[in-house]
């Protein structure tokens, strides 16, 4: 009998929600005998093995075909995997972990409501400030695709920000941000506002499989039940 490996997020609400959802589909993930172990079994199903990995590793491992399926946020797959549509397949949207990747500007930029406004500001930024418009983000790929390819905005620089991105404008590190938000409360607390057409990606947790035409029937059955 062949065993399929299903990768689940190793911590936090994503982990809990994934286990809950699997239980609802009749798959009870058993706690590992050693709680520090990152491997687990499914009750009564010797043909499924669960691997707990960090959410961004799951994106990579699915794309590389090292696991048979994985549950992770769509934002991570689209950001971490170059041309992800050719490498992974989205089997099911799971209805939790919802979050949007958005473009937000300081609320006081009253003259900037749309990406087109932002394009104008970016175009004259160096003439006015002696430098390019700076965008703080951890989403390099998504930002480039959205700005350069979708909106034809080329004149900006990305400043890598691995945390507390919403604070970057007030800290003078960047002018605007591209970040993930669920309720928008952190944005409001930092006097930032999402542009009218500033949604880069509506993300949620999804079941992904490698796009290799070898998806096992066990996984396909599971996808139907989720």
């Amino acid at each position, binding site marked *: 009998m062949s065993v399929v490996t299903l990768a689940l997020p190793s911590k936090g609400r994503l982990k809990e929600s994934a286990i809950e959802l699997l239980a609802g589909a009749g798959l009870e993930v058993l706690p590992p005998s050693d709680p520090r172990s990152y491997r687990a079994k499914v009750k009564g199903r010797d043909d499924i093995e669960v691997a707990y990995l960090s959410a961004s590793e799951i994106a990579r491992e699915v794309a590389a075909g090292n696991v048979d399926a994985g549950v992770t946020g769509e934002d991570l797959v689209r950001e971490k995997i170059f041309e992800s549509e050719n490498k992974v397949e989205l089997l099911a949207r799971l209805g939790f972990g919802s979050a949007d990747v958005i473009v937000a500007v300081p609320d*006081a930029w009253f003259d900037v409501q749309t990406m087109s406004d932002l394009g*104008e500001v970016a175009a004259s930024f160096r003439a006015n400030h002696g430098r390019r418009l700076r965008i703080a983000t951890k989403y390099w790929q998504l930002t480039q695709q959205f700005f350069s390819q979708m909106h034809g905005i080329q004149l900006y620089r990305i400043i890598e920000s691995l945390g507390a991105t919403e604070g970057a404008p007030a800290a003078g590190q960047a002018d605007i941000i591209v970040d993930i938000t669920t309720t928008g409360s952190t944005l409001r607390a930092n006097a930032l506002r999402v542009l009218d057409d500033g949604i880069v990606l509506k993300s949620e947790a999804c079941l992904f499989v490698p796009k290799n035409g070898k998806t096992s029937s066990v996984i396909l059955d599971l996808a139907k039940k989720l």
Partner: protein
Amino acid sequence: MTTFKSFGARADVEAIIVERGAVRTDVPVLQPADPFLDTAGEELRRRIFLTQSETGQAMCLRPEFTIPVCRLHVDQASDAARYGYVGTVFRQRQNGASEFLQAGIEDIGHSDVMAADARSLADARTCVAALNLQANFETLLGDQAVFDAVLKALGIPAGWRLQLTHAFGDDGALNAALEKLAQPAKMPNLPEDLQAALDAGNVADAEALVHSHLIDASLANAGGRGAPEITSRLMAQLQVAKSAPDAGKLETLRQFLGLRVSLNNATSELEAFEANNGLDIAGAVADFAKRNAALVEAGLDLASITYDASFGRPLDYYSGLVFELRTAGGTVIAGGGRYDRLLSLLGAPSPINGVGFSLWLDRIAEAQS
């Protein structure tokens, strides 16, 4: 392996460049990445080979020669000079190897721009001819200054002008920008007090209100956009929102962008366009005619060059002439242009003129075989 990888052919190219009177110049293969990303934008990041120095400085394999040569000129605070180069550049391309040979001449600091423009285009053509390219190629010429003059004469608002200028040469982006321009402008939703101040034309009050919002957000001293800039854009938006988009202007602009004629007829076509539409672009057209005279003086036959009004480069440092040599199949084998704004961007303390071209030696080799 292309023919130009062989040492002999490479030496030939060097000899041709030096024969044109350029100073043979070398720049390091490993370059700081920031000057490239700052000038060409983040889109370039996907195509260059990036690495990091021990101190964390972003470095890249040179993706082209113009910027390193300009930086060399600024660093050495040189007098006017013509720099000739041959070497490998590194760029990820959809077609072709990521490592390929380029050669070219950058003419920096010469104030007689017409003569320098003409010499650059003549040099590019002479080099291609000297490489024994048998295939036919066409020469395409565009002029950013004429485009800018048309936008200005049409009275297109400054903000739009910048966006259109930056989209110039990128048909998709330019069309999208024109479409947007045809839509009625919408005024943003503003707090009542700010809206009232703007409606009353009270700039000082509006600025003060915007400034207080910036202070609340701890942005007043963050080194970004300030209240005067935001307010003046709001005032401009108010003006645009009040005036309906002018379909006639857009039609005139499209008509201009459709101009594609042999260069020996281009001046009269531009003059006719100017007269028919009652626009004043006389200064730009006069410069255009002067450059044509310089091209003739440099020994070029204007009938062998095509002027395309929509041809440009969507980069903000190109300022005037742009040109390309293309094979019948549309492959660009040489590209050049005037970049008078580039040296200031790279740190020159005062403006320095520059014009230059690069030869795609791998494509020329392919066109020969």
